[in-house]
């Protein structure tokens, strides 16, 4: 298993607010790591630092051994990204959106059948594929977003609350897809609030609080209730973070 995502003492400070404090984290190929935490815990900041949307205050983020701040395009070429709110072009159809993003990210002319299969794979209704995205629900957009990330064939996937807005069936299919991708060697880092899904698919779970990775867990060692207890203890723990370790 090779190391595809690595955060070394990764820190981001916005004025006086430390959004991420000396994060050390690795995600290997074929591994799914879920980051749990309340809003403002530092999950999205971590993803943004890997994507190069933010410059670290100190420390480094590496993608496939490439330091993001040194070779942004090189690092991004290995990444697939699904944001919480998948943004698409409203006047284009789902298929056209997918085609556009795939062409730009891979610089290749994708086969239409392949794209249709991808949309089918992520569970987008066949009738919606050729309709303008303008009328899509949030869940449908998420599916197209996932298809975009899958189509690129990225070595590592960064997912920021991707399950938000998906119906249970689609969420289940989505998790299955992620598992399949991981089995094929993709590294997945997913920020989520969904403890149930995290427990279901993650190889490791990181709990974040106030910019600090306060605990790393292996879900196979716990049941759902134990995970919830640990999570809630951290969320309601007013004790200094160091003590929580």
């Amino acid at each position, binding site marked *: 298993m090779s190391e595809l995502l690595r955060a070394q003492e990764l820190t981001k400070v916005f004025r006086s607010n430390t959004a991420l404090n000396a994060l050390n984290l690795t995600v290997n190929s074929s591994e799914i790591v879920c980051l749990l935490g309340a809003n403002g815990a530092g999950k999205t900041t971590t993803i943004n630092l890997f994507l190069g949307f933010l410059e670290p205050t100190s420390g480094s983020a590496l993608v496939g051994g490439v330091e993001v701040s040194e070779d942004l395009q090189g690092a991004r070429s290995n990444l697939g990204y699904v*944001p919480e709110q998948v943004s*698409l072009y409203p006047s284009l159809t789902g298929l056209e959106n997918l085609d556009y993003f795939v062409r730009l990210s891979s610089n290749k002319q994708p086969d239409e059948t392949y794209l249709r299969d991808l949309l089918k794979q992520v569970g987008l209704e066949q009738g919606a594929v050729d309709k303008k995205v303008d009328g899509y629900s949030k869940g449908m957009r998420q599916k197209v*977003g996932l298809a975009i990330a899958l189509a690129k064939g990225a070595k590592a996937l960064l997912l920021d609350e991707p399950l938000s807005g998906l119906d249970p069936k689609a969420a289940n299919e989505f998790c299955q897809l992620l598992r399949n991708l991981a089995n094929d060697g993709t590294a997945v880092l997913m920020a989520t609030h969904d403890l149930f899904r995290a427990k279901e698919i993650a190889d490791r779970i990181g709990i974040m609080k106030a910019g600090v990775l306060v605990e790393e867990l292996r879900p196979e060692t716990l049941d759902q209730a134990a995970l919830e207890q640990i999570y809630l203890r951290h969320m309601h723990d007013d004790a200094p973070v160091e003590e929580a370790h």
Partner: protein
Amino acid sequence: MIGTIIQKELTELSRDGRAIGLLGIVSLLLVLGLVTGFATESAREQDILQAQEDDSSVFLEQGVKNPHSAAHFSRMAHKPIAPLASFDPGVASYMGQVIWLEAHYRNPAMFRAAEDAPELSRLENFSVAGVLTLILPLLIILTGYGSIASERERGTLRQLVGSGTSLKDLLLGKFAVIAGIAFAVLALVVILVTGFSALSLTESGYTASDIVLRGLSLLLVYGLYIAGLAALTLLVSMLVREAKTALLVMLGVWVVAVVGLPRLSANIAEQVYPSPDAGTFWEDTRASLQANRPGSESAEYLAVEREVIERALGRDLRADELDDLPINSAAVRLEVSEVIDAEAFNASYAELFENYEKQKQLRRVLSIFSPTIALQHLSRAYSGTDVSAHEHFSIEAERQRNTIVRIMNEDMMINGVGQSFGYVAPAEFWEAVPEFSYQPSTVTLAWNESVIDLLILFCWGLAATVAVFWFGTNRVRI
């Protein structure tokens, strides 16, 4: 990658009814400008051809007459319509179309179309150049203000960049679409006007190659203008947070730089270097003529007198020959005064045109804040409808006046010995006076005189383009 971006942008635009509507309006205005431009200039050209014909037949058929009377009656010099006047009428309508080539006076051009135009004809000011200068920027602004800002607002910019799309390629693709649409409209119009003008050449003195070069020059400068505005629109769209702010900022830029400053610059230039009214100009010119006239016994006068006689006889005079020479002395005096006064007239007109040049230079300074001013200068220069083109005509017409008057005076000098003003020339004499064969200034003159305007416009375009790509790759907020 850029091709993909262009294709997607065009698909989006084609599905956006507002963009299509706007393009339709701009096209309609351009068609209106083209039709009215061609109609107006064709009508003027016909009028000129007719007037030239009438003037020629009246002059040739005036019968036996004293040449000096004929010199007062004289000819009209008609300024040919610049072939690209239908594209940009420039200042031609305000400078006058015909110069009366009269003995003793260098007259200003008369028949200013702008003064004679009824209210409805003011529509002709809505020229192709006017639409391209004023309205085309709106098309650029309205198709481009949301280029980056809307992507950012929607979140697609983040998604694109996150998936590895190069921001530089994205900007290049969007720039190509915004500028490309406007340039396609421009190219179509310029090709139409240039092609039509080159194919329908009359005996105006212009050549097809000159018209084509003028058309290409117009394509270049309007292209630079479009590129600069497209880059500026992209830059603003990239720097502000929301698309509506980008629209407001760019509309502000349009009001100030495209509409306001060009008009204001003309007013400022007129205030700083006021153009003399006709009364003042003639008063000053008369004073200058008086001051310039030497006494009839002065060495200067006598030198001119000798030169005039020698030129009429076509040989040098001996030192003692002048007093006994069989020559019409009244005609000699007339020609001497013509030669002496021509110098003062030329100085007065040179001062007048120098004042126009100063106004232009001041507007040029202000064009640092508005590329539209530089573009207007270039557009008029390349269309052959600027002050320089008129000055060229005015100088050539004066040369023709000097020739006509000299021929009249010399005929009277040699053939009217002892008859003073009682001499009459035979009816066929008038055919000896050459027709005014005006060769308009070529595009080379326009190129030479508008280097600075071109440089200013180029710097504008370059600065905006460099800024958009520098900010785009270094400072853009995702």
